[in-house]
């Protein structure tokens, strides 16, 4: 049996995070790749195999859906309500992680001054 998709636990890997954010607007697979690359000045590149498999997983777990405007030859995807919830959840989680790390850095540099 397939194990429960990691996506549904609300922890997104980098590719899933970028793709889900991009699909707040409906888009074709190839354009997702281009959009992410351009918006991040090439610092985040989603490889075609990662894109294809991640789209499949997102679709299977109901975080994205096929747009009503697409046809069989070019598939267009769009985030679902469930997908938006998971994305927001993961943004909150990542923000807490960053806040924690930044706080630790501040404290450790503070300690140094005292010493």
């Amino acid at each position, binding site marked *: 049996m397939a194990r429960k998709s990691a996506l549904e636990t609300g922890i997104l890997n980098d*590719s899933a995070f970028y793709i889900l954010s991009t699909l707040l607007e409906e888009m074709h697979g190839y354009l997702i*790749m281009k959009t992410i690359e351009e918006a991040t000045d090439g610092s985040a590149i*989603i490889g075609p*195999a*990662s894109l*294809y498999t*991640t789209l499949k997983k997102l679709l299977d777990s109901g975080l994205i859906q096929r747009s009503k405007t697409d046809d069989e030859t070019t598939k267009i995807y769009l985030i679902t309500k469930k997908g938006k919830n998971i994305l927001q959840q993961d943004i909150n989680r990542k923000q807490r992680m960053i806040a924690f790390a930044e706080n630790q850095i501040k404290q450790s540099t503070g300690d140094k001054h005292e010493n």
Partner: protein
Amino acid sequence: MKTKYIMNGGLAFSEKKDIKKLEKLAAEGWLLEGLAWGGFCYKLVQGPAQDLIYTIDFQATPDSDYFDIFKSAGWRHITSSGQQIHIFAAPKGTPPIYSGNEIEEGKYQDFTVNLGKGALYSFLIMLVFMLLMYLSKSYYAFMYYPLFALTLISSMAFIFCFMPYLSYKFKAQAKQ
């Protein structure tokens, strides 16, 4: 056009080694055109020397979007084997087909499951033929050799599924 064939090391066992060899040959002007002899050989044709990188992906019955996405990312589809194994080529410097921290996660997963199924079915079929072969000896002696041949063929099918299955299984475990 000049053509030559080189042995396939068996993708389950020597994927990285095979790719390195093919890239070296491309730099010498021998370009991969496809698989031949039932996938046991790579078919190469002579052309302009190129700095190419090759990559292999496993994806069961992909749709046309799959190949479109690869093409858009600069990867040219060279050949596929059994709708499962797909070989692509791109100019040197093209970003890899798997990115981020999920690199190759699940790349072999579906494929390993299919190989395991194949191994199990061919094993069961082999047992049935073996039993029939044994019975035919005393009741229908004329059936003995045909059944012997069928047992042999199914045992070969079993080995060709089971050996790569083990190889991928160990690879997956080593990663964990």
